[in-house]
């Protein structure tokens, strides 16, 4: 375990060096890259997907994966915006418009609850049946996105411009949106959860050796289900922020985010085999992917090439993961 942690820091340093190198290159050669506005842009683009990736990291360290995160962001976002409409909320709870705070709370809490519920469902099915989490959550991806489309009737849902709700996505401190700071806090919280709690240690143990963890008396099922709940919850958080920022959501929102999130996590040094990785690494991974895509946009490279680039990035990252693993053995 202790040995694993050292390896992890090495991986983090490697990605930090790559990130710094790329940053330097882009600053020198990509026009209008090194401007305050663009740098804030990179942070903005990283923050919301980064929250999803941070949650996914916990699931992946435990040796599973969740592909339903993008769909959950869509469904939760729709839910959030619907509940910013006071008349919509009234259909569910009685109250007057003075109880604005209650409605606002619903608009924030229900999406989080939905995210957690999707995670709970995924976790219980995966641990209960022992099935492959890739295929189970692929099914959840389809089902939840279908549910989001069904719930919104395939339309784009707009918010009611509740100033408090909008502030979540639009308030700024020194031209940096507050959700960027929230992203950093979220990452640190999850990192602390993994590093300093019994739960966190159990997650690493389970990812390293599931059978040994069962024998060691770790409540394996409970921990694994919890990692899924954390992941779903993170998707719910991202959904609320995205909805507040765009003031719109639809059944096709966050399409393909599952791939972006997995890429960020893997580049951040979390092993696909589980047992190794960190949320801080994922933070760096997210920044790296966003930086590359940002540079491609600034260089006017047509958007479909981003798919190709992402595929190559993830294969490279996994290649490094496999190599280091071989050396370790």
């Amino acid at each position: 375990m202790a040995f694993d942690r050292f390896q992890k820091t090495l991986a983090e340093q490697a990605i930090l060096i790559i990130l710094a190198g790329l940053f330097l290159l882009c600053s020198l050669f990509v026009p209008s890259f090194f401007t305050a506005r663009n740098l804030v842009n990179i942070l903005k683009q990283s923050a919301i997907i980064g929250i999803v990736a941070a949650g996914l990291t916990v699931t992946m360290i435990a040796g599973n994966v969740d592909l339903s995160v993008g769909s959950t962001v869509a469904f939760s976002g729709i839910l959030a915006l619907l509940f910013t409409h006071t008349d919509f909320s009234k259909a569910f709870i009685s109250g007057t418009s003075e109880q604005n705070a209650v409605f606002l709370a619903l608009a924030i809490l229900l999406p989080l609850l939905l995210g957690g519920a999707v995670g709970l469902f995924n976790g219980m099915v995966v641990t209960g049946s022992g099935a492959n989490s890739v295929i189970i959550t692929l099914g959840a991806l389809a089902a939840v996105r279908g549910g989001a489309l069904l719930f919104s009737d395939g339309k784009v849902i707009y918010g009611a411009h509740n100033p408090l709700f909008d502030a979540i996505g639009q308030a700024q401190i020194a031209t940096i949106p507050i959700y960027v700071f929230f992203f950093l806090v979220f990452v640190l919280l999850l990192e602390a959860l993994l590093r300093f709690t019994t739960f966190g240690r159990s997650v690493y143990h389970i990812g390293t050796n599931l059978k040994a963890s069962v024998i060691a008396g770790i409540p394996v099922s409970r921990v694994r289900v919890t990692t899924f709940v954390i992941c779903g919850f993170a998707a719910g958080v991202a959904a609320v922020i995205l909805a507040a920022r765009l003031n719109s959501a639809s059944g096709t929102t966050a399409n393909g985010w599952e791939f972006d999130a997995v890429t960020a996590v893997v580049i951040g040094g979390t092993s696909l085999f589980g047992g190794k990785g960190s949320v801080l690494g994922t933070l760096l991974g997210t920044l790296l992917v966003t930086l590359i895509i940002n540079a491609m946009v600034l260089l006017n490279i047509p958007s479909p090439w981003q798919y190709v680039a992402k595929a190559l990035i993830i294969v490279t990252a996994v290649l490094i993961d496999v190599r280091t693993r071989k050396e370790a053995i």
Partner: protein
Amino acid sequence: MRRGLARTLLGDQKILLILFGITIVLAVIRPVFISPENIFNVLFQVSINGMIGVGMAYLMIGGDFDLSVGSNMVFATTAAILLEGLGIAPGIVLAVLLSSLAGFLNGVLVTKVKINSFITTLSMMIFLRGLVLIFTDKKTISGSTSALFAFGYGSLFGLIPYPVLVAAVVLPVFGFVLAKSVWGRNLYAIGSNSKAAQMFGINVDSAKIASFTLTGALCGISGIVLLSRLNSASGTYGMDTGLDVISGVLLGGTSLAGGEGSVFRAFLGVLLLGVLSNAMIILHVTPYLQQVVKGLMLITVVAVDAYQARRAEYR
């Protein structure tokens, strides 16, 4: 090696019974279900998914799977249109070869580079989808050949449509190969216990690479069959193919755990799923709800499969 029918999710006879039941009920309440047009629609879909399902069955029996099949299929469709200038036959052959190459690459990455099938095929899915979007410039592109159209809309003796005929040849041939060849036998052994298979001197890597390549080739052929009907390609085609094929093959009783299944069972599963999808359309279930049902069905099938596999292990 083959743990027998006991582990089959539904059992071949049960699937046939369910199919029979659904057909009767639908034929009574919605006669349009048994109109020649609708029957062709079902068979066309089942032909495409069934052919890809053959490859998927090979992979799953050997303990792998492929998420990139939908992208790979559209990749072939796109390539065939772009390569039209070379003449219709060379263009088609080249397109199928390119799809096979993508499959081969999946196999090499999984076996030699040891990246697991999930990340390999997920990346390939995104990569090929990206290539399609680049080549089509995010639009729908059309072919100009009418010869292929004659194939897509023609039929043997005015009875069996050619697209269905292709599948009617591919499925039994590869069903036979899987059941009787050394390659097939090796795949069952690898899926049951990869390490043991290796110790017995089975070349695990080449058997797996061959399965991935076959899957790629069948995606290519399916892409051409698709082209023969639609005469167009777009980055939005084939989005649900992977989900449908994996669900269908699992529904037929081929296990994700490996070591078990057959082409016939894969076909039955894909057929059942095709009929169910068609039934939902005919019963005017909204596409969104169809997606929910399909997703939940995949989850159920995989969960039950895994649960049974675990119980079998304890026995």
